[in-house]
């Protein structure tokens, strides 16, 4: 392996096999965190992952090749191709976090916050947002939580075409590190959560916007202060404690000219809020449901100004 690739994360788009993607890291010459994502035999793929993770690639690369399962290939064969692609540098390292760019023309966006697996809340919120005729509905994480409806929730998200971001609870389920008293989740369901975007980029009437859930992204392996939108995250999460420390707003204002975007959305604090600092708009996305009351946010643009309203559903 080329020496400068140590510790990088890769995502390989598999072909002809059940899993859509193979995720892994290479630390020195050792394969780590191998995961087949998006389908297939969960038991077998977990076994392969456990057998190979932590082992030098040279020890096993040869035995992976040429194994046939379907369409003249197999998961091990696809992994061999992925490692070969890393070696010849045709597979670039993946970003630290998964960024989704919504290229649609957005003039009005509906924002849904922490759902925590509450399918009924999602259904009622969708009915309410429909009346506002938004161009997009974004859920800023978490879609899952300590709820028996998590699987149903993911099904609804996929069916309705809502663009959902991964929240910390979703990430913990994806990693298999959810609290022990939370409901079990099948590996295919977890795979959906792995593949959720962690950062969303969109334009609202020509204004650049970025959305993320919270500071778990800063704790992802390989996170760099120079990753895309890391400045925005460092300022919101670290400097201002999610806009709760107004004393440092002068410092935030001094940093905003370096922002890549005009609008930043976050969800972690479960509190609705809208701040304008240094010509930038910052929005805290509150929970979908609290104290029996449902709420969502409507983001619009008027004469070039970003407008934000919190809407409630009785």
């Amino acid at each position, binding site marked *: 392996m080329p020496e400068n690739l140590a510790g990088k994360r890769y995502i390989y788009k598999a072909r002809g096999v059940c899993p859509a993607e193979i995720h892994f890291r290479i630390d020195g010459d050792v394969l780590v965190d191998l995961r087949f994502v998006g389908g297939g035999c969960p038991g077998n793929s977990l076994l392969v992952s456990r057998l190979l993770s932590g082992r030098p690639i040279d020890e096993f690369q040869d035995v992976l090749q040429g194994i046939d399962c379907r369409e003249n290939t197999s998961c091990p064969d696809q992994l061999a191709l992925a490692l070969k692609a890393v070696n010849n540098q045709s597979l670039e390292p993946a970003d630290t976090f998964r960024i989704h760019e919504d290229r649609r023309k957005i003039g009005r966006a509906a924002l849904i916050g922490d759902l925590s697996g509450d399918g009924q809340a999602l259904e009622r919120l969708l009915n309410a947002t429909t009346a506002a005729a938004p161009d997009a509905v974004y859920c800023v994480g978490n879609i899952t939580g300590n709820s028996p409806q998590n699987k149903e929730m993911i099904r609804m998200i996929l069916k309705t075409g809502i663009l959902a971001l991964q929240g910390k609870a979703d990430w913990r389920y994806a990693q298999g590190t959810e609290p022990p008293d939370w409901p079990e989740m099948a590996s295919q369901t977890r795979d959906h959560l792995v593949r959720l975007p962690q950062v969303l980029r969109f334009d609202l009437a020509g204004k650049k916007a970025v959305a993320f859930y919270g500071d778990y992204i*800063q704790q992802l392996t390989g996170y760099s*202060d*120079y990753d895309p939108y*890391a*400045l925005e995250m*460092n*300022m919101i999460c*670290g*400097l201002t404690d999610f806009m709760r420390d107004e*004393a*440092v707003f*002068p*410092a935030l204002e*001094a*940093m905003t000219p*370096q922002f890549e975007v005009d609008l930043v959305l976050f969800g972690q604090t479960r509190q609705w809020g809208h701040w304008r600092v240094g010509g930038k708009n910052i929005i805290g996305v509150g929970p979908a449901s609290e104290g029996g009351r449902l709420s969502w946010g409507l983001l619009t643009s008027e004469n070039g100004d970003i407008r934000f309203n919190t809407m409630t559903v009785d």
Partner: protein
Amino acid sequence: MAESVKVLPEDIQQLMDVYEWDMRTREGVQRFRALKARSLPSVALDGDLVYESQIPMQEEIAEEIRLRYHQKNRDDDHAS
């Protein structure tokens, strides 16, 4: 900001070490918050936040450093 400190007279340079934190980084933000700073640029001397939102005049900061240096050495002498 650090540039204005680096161009201080040689006798002052001998008395100090200069550290600059990049506010774009988590380390810089952590240091900023530990100093309880609120705005930029900020200058701390011996861990005390002394200047906020301003770049002090050379003479002013040189005098402040001299004062602190003498104070510190006097305290050290008394302690020993």
